[in-house]
């Protein structure tokens, strides 16, 4: 599998990462190298082998249904570029 410049530009846009025209070229090469490398794994026959989700025997940890967190609005808003009346304030996004 290999990807072209348009695909990289599209992925960059979806991920909201700015990639300049100049960077695009080299990024295409780098990403294709990674893909080629991962592709080598397909040489191994994995028919009938169940997907492994963890290298150690582990199950999904669970929480009790108790309120144990929240209630610190100032901390939550602290790093926001702009906050007003307890809300995050962002440039108007309206459909």
């Amino acid at each position, binding site marked *: 599998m290999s990807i072209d410049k348009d695909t990289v530009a*599209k992925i960059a*846009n*979806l991920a*909201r990462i700015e990639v300049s025209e100049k960077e695009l070229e080299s990024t295409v090469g780098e990403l294709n190298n990674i893909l080629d490398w991962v592709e080598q794994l397909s040489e191994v026959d994995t028919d009938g082998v169940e997907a492994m*989700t*963890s290298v150690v025997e*582990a*199950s*999904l*940890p*669970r*929480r*009790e*249904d*108790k*309120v*144990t*967190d*929240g*209630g610190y*609005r100032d*901390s*939550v*808003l602290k790093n926001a570029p*702009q906050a*007003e*009346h*307890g*809300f*995050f*304030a*962002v*440039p*108007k*996004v*309206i*459909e």
Partner: protein
Amino acid sequence: MSRLYPGATGDWEAVIGLEIHAQVISEAKLFSGAATAFGAEPNTQVSFVCSAQPGMLPVINEECVRQAVRTGLAMGCKINLRSIFDRKNYFYADLPQGYQISQFKDPIVGEGVVTIDLEDGSTKEIGVERLHLEQDAGKSMHDQHPTMTYVDLNRSGVALMEIVSKPDMRTPEEAAAYFKKIRSIVRYAGTCDGNMEQGSMRADVNVSVRRPGEAFGTRTETKNVNSIRYVTQVVESEIRRQIDLIEDGGTVNQETRLFEVATGTTRPMRSKEEAHDYRYFPDPDLLPLEFSQEFVDQLAKEMPELADAKKERFIRDLHITPYNAAVLTAEKENADYFETLLAATVDKTGKPISELGSLVSNWITSDLFGALKKLGKSINESPVSIEHAAELLGLQLDGTISGRIAKDVFDIMLDTGNSPEAIVEEKGLKQVSDTGAIEAMIDEILAENADKVEEYRGGKDKLFGFFVGQVMKKTGGKANPQVVNQLLRPKLDG
């Protein structure tokens, strides 16, 4: 039953499917310990997890898992003992993670079937495709500031169940009935409060049209429809719009649309570029969700009684009519009110429950519902308390007041909120069962109407009612009708 829609070029059939988002009833959010209560000050129920601060990890709330399984069981669905959480990637101001944790390929609940009731009394089976757990997003407010959008993350991370139907509905009525049925199911199961005004339940409505028997047409999806009536309007307007469009030589675009309440129609959402490229992949922060069949069986054993079972029990044990049973069980709060009032009436009168079911159910479905309809109130806003209602029925049962007087007392209760005993006392409405007093009155009336007595004795039986009426009039409706009948007949027959 398949309904066809006539167009200029022949008949069309509609195909409808619903994706219902139902907010899970839980104290804390799906993956964090922040609270879920509605109506809190903005951003006060937000943890570092639900605001997606770097390094935070999700830990699943086991109650949300149980709630999803309960809902699946209530819909008769297959429960998947292993399911997987995926990331659905998109950017929006009220989605701090940049992705929603959802379930894509392997949902917690699989296929099932629910039965809907239609207005003509028929039923239809609608397939459920799946139910999966996912996070809700925050809330954006666009109208608070001229150039800014305000974002409140209190709802961010709250657990939602997305319930996806099969495309089995063919009419607006079926779509509305299905939405209603799912709402009733989750409310009975205690897994979602079904409160549409607060956004606890909303539907994405998929509609397409086709020539009968042909393959599915291209569908549109109208987002976030939050009332049963709006679902009906969306389906109606989309069917009409799509038929007109195709017959005019156009084609339906597969697109997302918005419902406009003011016009009752839909319009296309300004399509965000590449908005639908969600790039799902398994969330590396979460292992697969696994549980045993014993876990499911235990939840099944603890399930509350659901509407259909309740209806049968009401008919079988309480001897109430199938019609009343259906009316009372369609909405959980009505069934709850009935059972609470029934228990209160048993307490009040000491009579066995099986003797009271019919009276209590009739009183609720006719007197109370009639009054609430006039007042435009729901049963939870009833101006008459359970205690007062039980007192009223008790007064009627022990013969203190007649059925007719009970209706007058109820009207006064609605106006004043006073207890029926106080009203009966104050207005002197106690039924007169004192045979001596009634007998004296009958004698008076017979003497005053000697001519009518002659007529009656001459064979005009119908005049009996006239005499009863005279006695009731004299007592202001308070005479016990049974006693009047018993005393009047021998006197008239002379």
